């Protein structure tokens, strides 16, 4: 009651804490580039002028894991690369998400052999799998928006 007369016609916007935090998390989610193969070309294209992921607050592809929230694994992960991927994931601060972009990262794709990890979910927890070989930039953006939808439904009680 005390504040209302002073504000006049301005009004007051109220929200819940978890909604405000989830809004912040979805609107400034800096991706770490993990381009390993041809999918990286489409990831660059999604960042470039035509598709422009900075419309979603993702203008900076961080080359450093300590400044990023989202890891986009773009390309096939070899058994030799797997420990590096895990180490970079461990260096990312919480909260962190992983998008597995393309067939090879998601399940090995066409490379069903001893050299390729059959899906990065063997080594890191994956939130969204994007199909395609390679996926169009629209497909990657669609996958990221699916991740945003999931984050919007996060509850404080689940964070502990």
């Amino acid at each position: 009651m005390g504040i209302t007369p002073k504000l006049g016609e301005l009004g007051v916007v109220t929200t819940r804490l978890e909604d405000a935090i989830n809004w912040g998390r979805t609107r400034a989610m800096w991706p770490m580039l993990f381009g390993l193969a041809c999918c990286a070309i489409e990831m660059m294209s999604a960042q470039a002028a035509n598709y422009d992921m900075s419309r979603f607050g993702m203008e900076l592809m961080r080359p450093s894991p300590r400044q990023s929230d989202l890891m986009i694994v773009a390309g096939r992960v070899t058994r030799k690369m797997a420990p590096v991927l895990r180490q970079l994931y461990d260096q990312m601060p919480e909260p962190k998400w992983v998008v597995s972009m393309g067939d090879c990262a998601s399940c090995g794709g066409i490379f069903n052999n001893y050299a390729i990890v059959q899906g990065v979910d063997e080594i890191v927890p994956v939130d969204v799998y994007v199909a395609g070989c390679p996926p169009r930039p629209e497909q990657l953006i669609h996958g990221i928006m699916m991740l945003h939808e999931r984050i919007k439904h996060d509850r404080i009680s689940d964070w502990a």
Partner: protein
Amino acid sequence: MNLINGFATTIKHLLERPVTVQYPEQERAVRERFKGRHALKRYDNGLEKCIGCSLCAAACPADAIWVEAAENTDEERYSPGERYAKTYEINMLRCIFCGYCEDACPTEAIVLEHKYRLSFHDRRDAIYTKERLLDPPPAGAPDTPWVTEPGTFDRAIPIMQDPD
């Protein structure tokens, strides 16, 4: 003078319209021959085109397709000819959308269409079963299975007329 020369490109681009496609609201049309999500087609009368021959699975370089065939009977007919696809599964995360299945299919049952929004929270959701791939029957046509007269629809491929 050097300053003007140096900024000439920048100033030229300032006057242009932005090229960005506002993706979720606005979509860029794909090319006519774009290969996206598969669909299993039907004939105009509503029978399924797929005869369960597994040639698509044999042609698939990524082993993404799994076909299991079963016998058609006159009481329960899904497709013309002897057999139909009882289970037809494509793992969209294995598929590389090369279109070899389309080329291999003798009845043109499988077609790669223009849908491309394929993202999943779970790897198991990526396996598209026959129910998700099969097109609905055309308007007015009954859904499969059919009860048919013996002796009709016993050829998988229509009889070809000799060209003149």
